[in-house]
């Protein structure tokens, strides 16, 4: 036991002395939360609108004012011809353009429909679709107002057609403001934990191999599990500290809700750390160099946990193959659990399946990774 304590002290010294790695380990969670809170957003506002109006009349100016007053549009250019549009779109100076035809007001007054062309930069498909919907809404509102204020037709008879509307009442549940920070924080915890637990563990263990000091450890009275424990426990502690750090920062800076039980969340976090550590140990026992270990962790652990956990990109939109793979990605389960606890305030009564799976994975992997480590020693 004293030997284990000695190894632990040595590991902590290593970490303390390596200021740069320590700095990254502390900065990583803090900066990530800030980035995801402020930079990773998908809401659309301040649309750069170009207007092509060859012959301004009362109606086109009216409609232009409607766009300007809508709040989300900013008219960046007004031109008489469409020549300039290409350049505006290609440089990104404009995202959307409305093109009037000459005699817009005249057409409106007569029976034929007044044509209006709405061109949207759909490079990013969702933004494109949303912009189209916004522009249509402005035009529809304008049209409705015109109809309402229309004088009766000459004959005095007015066709009345009851308009039927289905009025959607929208309730946005669990995250009414749709603040991105609320969504990303649970995933971020998984991300930070994966880096610290899997990547760091795999690298420190292979480093001992690469530099040849693993041999020295092996001939010491330390038993294999003690070597692993000595190497892993410091990162377990750091990982746990990182989770708390992310959580506290998210609660203070972004006021992310924590509706469920903190204890349960921390317990699940610990479970996830255990799973990730095991991945790290397993990979380190199969690789001989730091580079290979890093590559292995990156491909088998980090990438799937970022992409296939539903952390950033919705799983439902992915091809079936990727969705199947996601079932074995531990991050997916942790993200579901953490979002459930934080945003929905649900507990084990809904999350027992995910928890059970993670527990099984943690202990299953523990056995496999220890055995694999022992095997390699002989």
């Amino acid at each position, binding site marked *: 036991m004293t030997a284990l304590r000695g190894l632990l002290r040595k590991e902590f010294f290593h970490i303390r002395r390596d200021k740069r790695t320590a700095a990254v380990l502390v900065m990583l969670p803090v900066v990530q939360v800030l980035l995801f809170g402020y930079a990773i957003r998908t809401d659309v506002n301040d649309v750069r609108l170009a207007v092509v109006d060859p012959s301004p009349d009362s109606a086109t100016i009216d409609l232009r004012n409607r766009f300007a007053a809508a709040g989300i549009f900013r008219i960046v250019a007004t031109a008489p011809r469409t020549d300039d549009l290409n350049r505006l779109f290609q440089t990104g100076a404009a995202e959307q353009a409305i093109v009037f035809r000459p005699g817009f007001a005249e057409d409106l007054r007569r029976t034929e429909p007044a044509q209006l062309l709405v061109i949207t930069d759909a490079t990013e498909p969702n933004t494109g*679709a949303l912009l*189209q919907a916004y522009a249509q809404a402005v035009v529809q509102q304008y049209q409705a107002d015109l109809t309402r204020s229309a004088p009766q037709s000459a004959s005095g008879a007015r066709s009345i057609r009851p308009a039927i509307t289905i009025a959607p009442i929208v309730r946005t549940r669990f995250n009414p403001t749709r603040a991105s920070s609320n969504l990303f924080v649970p995933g971020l915890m998984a991300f930070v934990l994966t*880096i610290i637990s899997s990547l760091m563990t795999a690298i420190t263990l292979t480093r001992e191999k690469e530099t040849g000091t693993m041999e020295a450890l092996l001939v010491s009275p330390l038993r294999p599990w003690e070597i692993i424990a000595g190497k892993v426990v410091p990162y377990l502690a750091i990982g746990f500290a990182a989770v708390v750090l992310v959580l506290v920062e998210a609660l203070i800076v972004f006021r992310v809700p924590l509706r469920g039980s903190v204890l349960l969340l921390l317990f699940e976090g610990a479970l996830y750390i255990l799973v990730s550590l095991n991945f790290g140990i397993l990979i380190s026992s199969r690789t001989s160099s730091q580079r290979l270990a890093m590559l292995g962790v990156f491909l088998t652990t980090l990438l799937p946990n970022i992409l296939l956990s539903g952390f950033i990109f919705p799983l439902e939109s992915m091809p079936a193959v990727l969705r199947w793979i996601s079932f074995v990605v531990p991050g997916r389960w942790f993200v579901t659990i953490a979002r459930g606890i934080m945003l929905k305030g649900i507990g084990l009564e809904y999350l027992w399946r995910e928890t059970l799976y993670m527990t099984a994975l943690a202990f299953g992997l523990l056995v496999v990774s220890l055995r694999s480590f022992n095997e390699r020693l002989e």
Partner: protein
Amino acid sequence: MRRVLFLAQAEVLHIVRDRILLAQTLIVPMIQLLILSNAATFEIHNTPIAIVDLDRSSASRGVVNHLAANGHFDIVDAPASLDRANQDMLDGSVTMAVVIPHDFETSLMRTGVAPVELSVNAEKGSAAGIVQSYAQSVLAAYGAELTRSAPTIGPRIPDPRSRIDVRLRSRYNPTLNYKYYMVPGILVALMTIIGSLLSAQNIAREKELGTLEQLNVTPITRGEFIVAKLLPFWCLGLIELTMGLIIGKLVFGIPIVGSLVLLYAVAAIYLFVALGIGLFISSVVETQQQAMFVTFFIVNIYLLMSGLFTPIDSMAPWVQVASQINPVRHFVTISRAILMKGAGPAEIAQPLVILLASAVIVLTVAVRQYHKRAS
């Protein structure tokens, strides 16, 4: 000059012989490209929804049918009670619950207006907003259809005024294919990772193994050493781009509207920035582990703030300003502008100038730092 070539040749031999490095540079990025392009999508289809039809009338069935036929939704549950729908939301099996109230048809017929409740599970992120707007447009279309088929009261004369015929045109990505948008950006990410991570790791490795010391006592100057080290990675970056473009074209059918020559020219400049960052990192770290972590950390920030995954326009104002000094942002913009929009030199002039300036600054700082450390 000959010495540089020899050293570069040695470096190329190293890369070719080193199976790990080869895997890192050629296979991993292509896997990333294939997975990322499929996974990194905010596209909405097959969204699981539950519909609670309390009315069970022909009008309410119309709502159900329209939602089912839309293609964006997958009706996975049609519970009879609100409680079940609520549970579906809580256990996460549905993204939206639609509730059609009891007197839906009656009130629709009598007053012309009837509510439908849409509960969106915003836990699913940005998808929630899009799902909601899709559902709303389905309902609006159904309402319009009912209006058309409803009997008119009074003489049937066309409403003479105020019909605006809105034509919509989506430019550059008319089929709204997310991959067209992602692939040009992912290519930039891959080149960034190759450029900075591998060069940083490579030089740090020489330090760790002690071979850097050996090189320092040879007649090779530091300038020659840097050029010889970076040149092979510069070429690798361009090979990477080529492979990525081929996969993008063959597998995903991405559009290549603009000039490839222009794209390669910009990529050649951009790689200097990425390599410079790697060189700088390698000169301030001592071990491979540090090199990996520091690079990972920095590249990660660069990528997240580049508009690669989410539009720059949506970011907080101060982030938008800060991202101006992010070289990745400018290359992502340029790559998309050239490939998707067919922009020429004039249209990309502004980001290109910033890229050029960053290349000069980053390389100067990195080489200075390297000299300071090495002496």
